């Protein structure tokens, strides 16, 4: 899932600027699951903002709505009237959700209430960790199902650097060494010899470095009307 974290109330208030009618828009997918921007968080945030604005003496009318999926235009239409009525929309979807609103409603000012962090999973109650960096060309087949791009601090492809110690990364004892994880798994699976292959330089063109990415599936496209 996409994991995000709410911005501070101070930063959000600054982002809202002079907007009087504020609409908080939550999202029912990833950010609901990571407790950052679902229906519950939208309600709580709207309430906190109302209190904060009252204390600041800032007259604002703050309402909230949560759509099932902020990252698809069609789902935004359910809240179209409210969105169009607002002076400023505070999206607490991920960065995709914020942009989906901006694209669907060209005349609406939309600001983010979350910082989108990474693609990951909950490792225990209240803890989420990064797992995929969307590099565009999956290497998990040669690294035992542990991603060196996302989980090695230096995204190394040919084994651990000299900063691996006691299972953790040199940058922080709380960060497991991605290559130690790869090594341990390969050893357990009896596939250590795979790690002896020299991995060639990665084609970063398939990652963000190639520019904004797009997938075209001709088999799924609707017949084009001239």
């Amino acid at each position: 899932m996409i994991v995000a974290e709410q911005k501070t109330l101070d930063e959000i208030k600054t982002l809202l600027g002079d907007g009087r009618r504020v609409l908080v828009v939550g999202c029912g997918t990833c950010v609901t699951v990571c407790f950052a921007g679902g229906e519950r968080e939208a309600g709580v945030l709207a309430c906190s903002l109302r209190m904060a604005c009252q204390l600041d003496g800032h007259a604002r009318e703050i309402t909230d709505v949560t759509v099932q999926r902020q990252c698809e235009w069609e789902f935004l239409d359910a809240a179209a009237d409210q969105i169009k009525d607002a002076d400023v929309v505070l999206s607490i979807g991920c960065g995709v959700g914020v942009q989906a609103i901006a694209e669907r409603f060209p005349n609406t000012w939309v600001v983010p209430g979350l910082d989108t962090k990474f693609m990951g999973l909950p490792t225990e109650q209240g803890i989420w960790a990064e797992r995929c960096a969307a590099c565009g060309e999956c290497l998990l087949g040669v690294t035992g199902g542990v991603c060196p791009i996302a989980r090695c601090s230096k995204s190394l492809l040919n084994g651990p650097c000299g900063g691996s110690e006691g299972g953790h990364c040199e940058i922080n004892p709380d960060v497991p060494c991605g290559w130690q994880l790869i090594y341990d798994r390969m050893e357990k699976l009896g596939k250590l010899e795979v790690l002896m292959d020299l991995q060639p330089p990665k084609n970063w063109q398939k990652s963000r470095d190639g520019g904004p990415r797009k997938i075209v599936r001709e088999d799924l496209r609707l017949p084009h009307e001239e």
Partner: protein
Amino acid sequence: MSLGATGSPETNKSGLLAGSNLEKVLRAGHFAVTAELGPPQSADHAAIRNKARHLRDCSDAVNLTDNQTAIVRMSSIASGAILVQEGLEPVIQMVCRDRNRLAMQSDLMGAYALGIRNVLCLTGDHQSFGNHPTAKNVFDLDSIQLVRMVSGMRDQRVFQCGEAMKGPEPRFFVGAGASPFAAPVPFRPYRLAKKVRAGANFIQTQLVYDIEAFEIFMETVRKLGVHEQAYILVGVGPLKSPGMARYMKESVPGILVPDQLIERMNRAGAQWAGRKPEELSKEEKKTRSEAWKAEGIKICIELIQKVRAVEGVAGAHIMAIEWEEAVRPIVDGAGLLPRPNLS
């Protein structure tokens, strides 16, 4: 996915890959000595020249670190060019943290054009350690891919993209690092073998203080035949104080300092033991520091003598961090002076 071996490297008319002094010394079968010089955190060329004075005639080549510990310093290539002017032979270090493959290749050609003939390919410390922790890192290539690229530029005369080079190619004696005691320890000899398979001609290791552990590492290295395909220079360094020894043991990944060495450092300062720093006069502190440093140099000399006896070791790389003047007494004490003159 495997690149396989790089094939037999192409040598020049004299049978050398790069013709650097370091290559000649190693080829001639001498026990090589390299030292390390940290460029200044300023544009002060005199700082390089001053440090170089301490290393002249007591090392076969001098490593210039590349923004080590992720702290911005004068570039290793510029510092290396100054050493060339001074008549010393540089080994420029190149880390993967700060440059992509375009910048690396253009810098390699530039370094060669400036007279630099040795390069040590390293991963690089993470930027979070240094003075620009909010920087974006690169790691376009890893150190093994960098080794492969530098040797490919020399042996196949191609850029990383596969395009042929039109003019003279940069011909470097290609080095790589090895950290024998970093985790996962059993993988380390194999990672070294990968570096050599990618084209490394010489290896400089992380600091070694634990000879027994190093011998275990070398046993596997020899089993893999790596010592016959690349020259292995063992990293050694003089301890400055018991505190430094403890810090390295406890806080630096991949460095093992046996308690016995820490004890020796303690004993060297036994005269002042049990007294708080504020109870010591400036003069006493200085004398204590001199006593520690003398013991550190003595230990370093013994380490060189011990690693020299290990089969498959071709030289020593002396890392006297911000203490370049220690190099000459170490090399002298180890009986490694004068250095061979092969020019």
